[in-house]
């Protein structure tokens, strides 16, 4: 009934969807799985009209359609239930349900609230939610909000001729097991009204609910499995299935770390809602990689080590000293450097030049009584530009105008030149081209050789395996498995995925 044929989507530098075929029949529930970056969300955006396909055709009941906006897709019966709650929390439930479609209740320019409440109650009954439609959304639990979202999408039923397709993006990520079961039985019942596309990181749930599962990898649909034939192992293998190039990750340069020098030690640290009961040791010369799906708690752990988030229980020790006052300032003084994910937003200050960015964390060392020694700063910057091969015309260049790889190097130079020996890297190679990635890998190895410890959240699983000495796999905020990986005895991709999903 709804069908994509050979759909392509190209972004500058990325071929996000490659000739994707995808179809869904009336009343069907179709699962969609793949690693981060495999193209799931791009595919969803094409389906619900947020992106337009660059090639291929989209057809409903055999008739080609082209959506310029989500609104047009909705007019054709395609609705989206977002992972991040998209309800506006300061509005009431009914206002949210009919947001953008209030016109039907307007009499003489005034909204007829009783009529809207009546209609909202009717929608809420579809998802078996018995609440007052005039409740302010912020007062609902997450599970209730999820159902309101579903009710909102189901209003399409009355508005649209023909069949509905509803996309569920990670609908279970904030729900408890009983809530998940309720949602699933509801979705099964609703198949009389609509077809569903179910996207989730949780493989068991996908298999439980879906009639068929599409497996994506690198922008392609690599397999389509009917439920009867679906096995978790086989699908996970399909999701990763490729070999790592040892050369690429500089594995020959990987040296054993120093097991006697512990730089960072977490002992049963918990932060409710983010992660719980995490223990780990980071040694001098070690690359420890946190692996998990989006929201598994990787970033929150980095932020805790840097002092940006204070855990509720457990101890964080940096170089043997238990952290009491959390705060970035204390972390920087203890020698921790943080290279966050979004360089443009958090890594460098655009508008400030190369040397200004490099000395930002250590201005005390380049000033006397508050007056800066510009000469010393520039000398430092020139030195590090040479050491890291940063491509910039001079030290006066605005960092916002440098390429991503060079910005990354400036950030690393900032921490390394200040003597930081605990480096937290969050997706250090995201958005870099291959050459720049290799530079980053070289730098990681060099920092280790200098005795620094690196806590890494890698961009891909291959990168995690290639770079790390130790890999801690997280799932839903809990430590699942710890792999030790000297060159030659590294875990396989499948091992990791197996514990992640």
């Amino acid at each position: 009934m709804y069908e994509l044929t050979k759909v392509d989507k190209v972004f500058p530098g990325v071929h996000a969807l490659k000739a994707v075929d995808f179809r869904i029949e009336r009343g069907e529930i179709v699962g969609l799985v793949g690693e981060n970056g495999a193209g799931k969300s791009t595919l969803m955006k094409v389906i619900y009209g947020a992106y337009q396909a660059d090639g291929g055709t989209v057809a409903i009941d055999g008739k080609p359609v082209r959506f310029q906006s989500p609104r047009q897709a909705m007019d054709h019966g395609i609705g989206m239930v977002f992972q991040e709650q998209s309800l506006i929390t300061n509005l009431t439930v009914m206002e949210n349900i009919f947001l953008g479609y209030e016109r039907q209740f307007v009499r003489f320019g005034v909204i007829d609230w009783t009529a809207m409440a009546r209609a909202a109650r009717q929608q809420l009954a579809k998802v078996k939610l018995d609440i007052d439609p005039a409740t302010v959304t912020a007062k609902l639990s997450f599970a209730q909000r999820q159902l309101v979202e579903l009710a909102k999408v189901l209003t399409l039923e009355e508005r649209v001729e023909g069949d509905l397709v509803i996309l569920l993006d990670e609908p279970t990520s904030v729900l408890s097991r009983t809530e998940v079961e309720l949602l699933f039985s509801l979705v099964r019942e609703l198949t009389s009204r609509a077809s569903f596309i179910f996207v989730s990181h949780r493989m068991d749930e996908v298999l439980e609910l879906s009639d068929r599962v599409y497996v994506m990898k690198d922008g392609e649909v690599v397999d389509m499995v009917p439920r009867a034939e679906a096995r978790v192992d086989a699908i996970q293998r399909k999701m990763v299935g490729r070999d790592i190039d040892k050369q690429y990750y500089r594995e020959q340069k990987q040296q054993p770390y120093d097991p006697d020098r512990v730089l960072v030690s977490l002992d049963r640290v918990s932060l409710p809602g983010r992660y719980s009961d995490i223990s780990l040791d980071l040694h001098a010369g070690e690359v420890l990689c946190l692996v998990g799906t989006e929201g598994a708690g990787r970033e929150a752990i980095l932020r805790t080590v840097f002092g940006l988030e204070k855990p509720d229980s457990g101890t964080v020790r940096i170089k043997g000293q238990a952290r009491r006052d959390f705060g970035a300032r204390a972390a920087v003084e203890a020698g921790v450097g943080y290279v966050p994910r979004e360089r443009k937003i958090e890594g460098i200050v655009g508008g400030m030049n190369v040397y200004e960015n490099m000395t930002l964390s250590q201005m005390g060392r380049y000033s006397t009584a508050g007056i800066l020694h510009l000469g010393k700063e520039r000398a430092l910057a020139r030195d590090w530009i040479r050491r890291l091969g940063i491509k910039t015309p001079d030290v006066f260049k605005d960092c916002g105008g440098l390429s991503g790889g060079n910005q990354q190097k400036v950030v690393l130079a900032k921490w390394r030149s200040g003597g930081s020996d605990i480096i937290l890297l969050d997706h250090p190679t995201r958005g870099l081209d291959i050459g720049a990635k290799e530079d980053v890998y070289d730098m990681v190895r060099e920092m280790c050789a200098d005795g620094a410890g690196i806590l890494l959240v890698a961009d891909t699983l291959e990168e995690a395996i290639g770079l790390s000495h130790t890999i801690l796999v997280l799932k839903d905020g809990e430590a699942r498995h710890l792999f030790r990986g000297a060159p030659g005895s590294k875990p396989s991709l499948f091992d990791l995925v197996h514990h992640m999903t």
Partner: protein
Amino acid sequence: MTGFPNREVLLRWAPLIVLLILMLFFTALEPRFFSVRNFARIAISAAPALMVAVGVTFIILMGSIDLSMEGAVSVCAVSFAFVFLWLGGSLGGWGWLALPLTLVAGAVLGLVNGLVHVRLRIPSFMASLALGFVGTGLAMLMTGGDRIRIEDPAFRALLTTRWLDFPVMIYVAGLFLLLGWFIQSRTTLGRNLYAVGGGEDLAHGSGLNVARVRIMGFMLAGVFYAVGALMAVARIGIAETATGNGFMFTSITAVVVGGTALWGGTGGVWNTLVGVLIVSVIGNGMVVIGLPGYLQDGILGLLVIIAVVLSTDRRSVSIVK
């Protein structure tokens, strides 16, 4: 690389180009505009506003806003007058002490402003607006609505003594402008102001004490307001509650027209100098060619909108609140 007058370069020099065009325009209409006498007149009217505008530049560089300048200038002017007269009313005697004390008073006002903004977590525009009113009220309370005359010839020499046709206060203003430039480019405080304006999260993540930087920024601004207040008193010879009137619009207009971005991180005191000159040239030029005063404000208002429109890359800003 790109064609010569690319957008970036053009925007950088746009304020100066506008200033030159304005001067040509007024000169063409009225040749007397282009005379040393008239330039001195422009400079005198611009000097106090320049000091206030330099002060608020530091705040805007941080991405905050300060609207307390009118109250701060009034309080500084009035307290200067009281202390100066109490100490004998002459720069030759102990009266000179009133000058540094006024700067301290400005810093204290800035400190209060910064503390209210940072510690009570009130948006800077609201905190400073409220404290500005408090300042105006305080000045009124101190004077009881009276004007205080300052007739000490040594102090008035700031206006009356001229070197090369320009009064001494212009040179003093120039010195403070250089001081502002030094703070902006050569001190950790200046660097920190840019860092907070350019990326507060990152500044915090680099171990900067952002709260302290903000409070210091407001104190610095307060000192410059005090300098502005002293010049305003020297220019007219009177300290009163109304001394601060008009500084808010003029100084913020000047900063924005000069090209310092309202969201912080770019610009600086030289931009503000050009901005103040643009505002003053328009004001003076319209008087010289004989246009009514009420048109001036309207034209300045339009100019602010044009300046912001030119300097904003609206494609990158999706929501404006």
